[in-house]
């Protein structure tokens, strides 16, 4: 078993290292996928529904990856719980609810509400740049004894890691995709995802592992193959998150699972 947290009644233990990450797969898993992963991280959620401002393309293809910007679009906590609670209860793997950075002001309230939802095994905090990492983590910690995973940005990861751990995070997810801008007919900003993020993510993970030995770490960023998974585990991650690889290749999980056997 892989231990990510010891807090609360159950702590957070995974039967293997593969987590399906926030965003790539929505809020519910099909049965085939459930058998291949060891934890599921939901779409980033805010307390209230969050609608996008405009129907502009929110994902832009680049060479070797994408620039994306969901603009925080999500149906809101009440809808997510109403629609998914039953399905989540049937899952036999830990389910981690992600709190979207757009709704940071309400994280404490969300934490208090979902503490009673049995299907939720932990919370992942999307600690985007500009958020007071320590204060944001501490407001959630004050409301729940659920395991907290702090998803820190790849930019200046050591400061963010320090703040998250001081705020009460149990584990660190390294990390939140780097920000980027594309200048074409119009300016386009968002986060980068895809294979070209892997070197950045590996570097940040290496630094965090060096500075915070013993802290449970989850690697994320550009993981597309079983070799990628091995690389992240080798430099200090206890688990990894797979995200946009499943957009690119719906069989990515099959291939990674087979490659790790």
């Amino acid at each position, binding site marked *: 078993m892989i231990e990510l947290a010891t807090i609360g009644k159950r702590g957070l233990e995974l039967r293997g290292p593969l987590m399906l990450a926030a965003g790539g*797969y929505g809020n519910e898993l099909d049965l085939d996928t459930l058998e291949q992963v060891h934890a599921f991280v939901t779409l980033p959620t805010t307390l209230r529904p969050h609608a*996008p401002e405009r129907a502009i393309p929110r994902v832009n293809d*680049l060479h*070797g990856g994408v620039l994306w910007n969901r603009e925080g*679009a999500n149906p809101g906590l009440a809808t997510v719980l109403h629609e998914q609670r039953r399905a989540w209860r049937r899952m036999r793997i830990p389910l981690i609810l992600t709190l979207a950075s757009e709704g940071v002001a309400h994280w404490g309230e969300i934490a208090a509400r979902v503490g009673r939802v049995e299907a939720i095994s932990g919370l992942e905090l999307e600690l985007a740049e500009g958020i007071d990492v320590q204060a944001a983590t501490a407001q959630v910690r004050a409301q729940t004894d659920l395991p907290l995973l702090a998803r820190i940005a790849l930019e200046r990861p050591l400061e963010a890691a320090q703040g998250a751990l001081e705020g009460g995070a149990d584990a660190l997810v390294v990390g939140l995709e780097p920000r980027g801008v594309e200048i074409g007919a119009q300016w386009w900003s968002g986060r980068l995802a895809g*294979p070209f993020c892997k070197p950045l993510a590996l570097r940040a993970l290496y630094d965090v592992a060096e500075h915070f030995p013993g802290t449970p770490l989850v690697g994320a960023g550009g993981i597309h193959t079983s070799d990628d998974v091995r690389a992240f585990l080798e430099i200090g991650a206890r688990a990894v998150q797979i995200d946009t690889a*499943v*957009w*690119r290749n*719906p069989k990515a999980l099959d291939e990674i699972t087979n490659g790790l056997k």
Partner: protein
Amino acid sequence: MTVSAGTFFLSQVNPPRADLHAAPGQFLLATPPTLDPYLPRIVWPFHLRAETVDSVLLPPDATNWARSEQLQLRGPYGHPFTIPDQPLRAIVLAADTLGGAQMLTLIEALVARECEVTVLCAPDPWIEGWLPPEVEYREVEQVLTASADLVNWADRLYACGSPALYDALYDMAHTARLAFAHGWGEILCRNLPMPCGIGLCYLCACKTRRGVILNCKEGPVIDLADWQSEA
């Protein structure tokens, strides 16, 4: 083989795919074997006079890779156009230069249902060449500025094209019919990337008059009455 098809490019699927049979308005996702481009692209099944998908319409930016690659196709995805149960006497299809080729599978389905179809379309010799002889074709220089007289006699309206076209049709319908009903008009909604195709990733969320929808799952075909302008 790939040929120009209006603003799209028509590419043969070899061998034809019986398992991908899609209703008009539904889309497929195409992934090349290399990582560039990274995301699967939306392609539109084009299977006139065939039970199987034997061709697809490629967006213009796909042709630099799609011509020479072995594409992985999957689908169909999305909410299709509603084909009337009974033959209707006055169906109008409107398209501007963006949407003409996407309408052809719909036209064929309507003609097969013995509906009387009039097409209002920006001039496009390629599209005209594919139209069944039963269809009345009216070339409209500017569909957007066409008079409401062209559409307000229709029993039903379908449209494929740009947001500006939908704005114009919504305004025309609203003016001519005061409060027009749901079910009268359907449009092939916004041309947004839809990476997952099944309503999971929320990257194609967009506003309509009935709230936020996921374009890949609750669209791409939506009711004209739900169209919300962004102008």
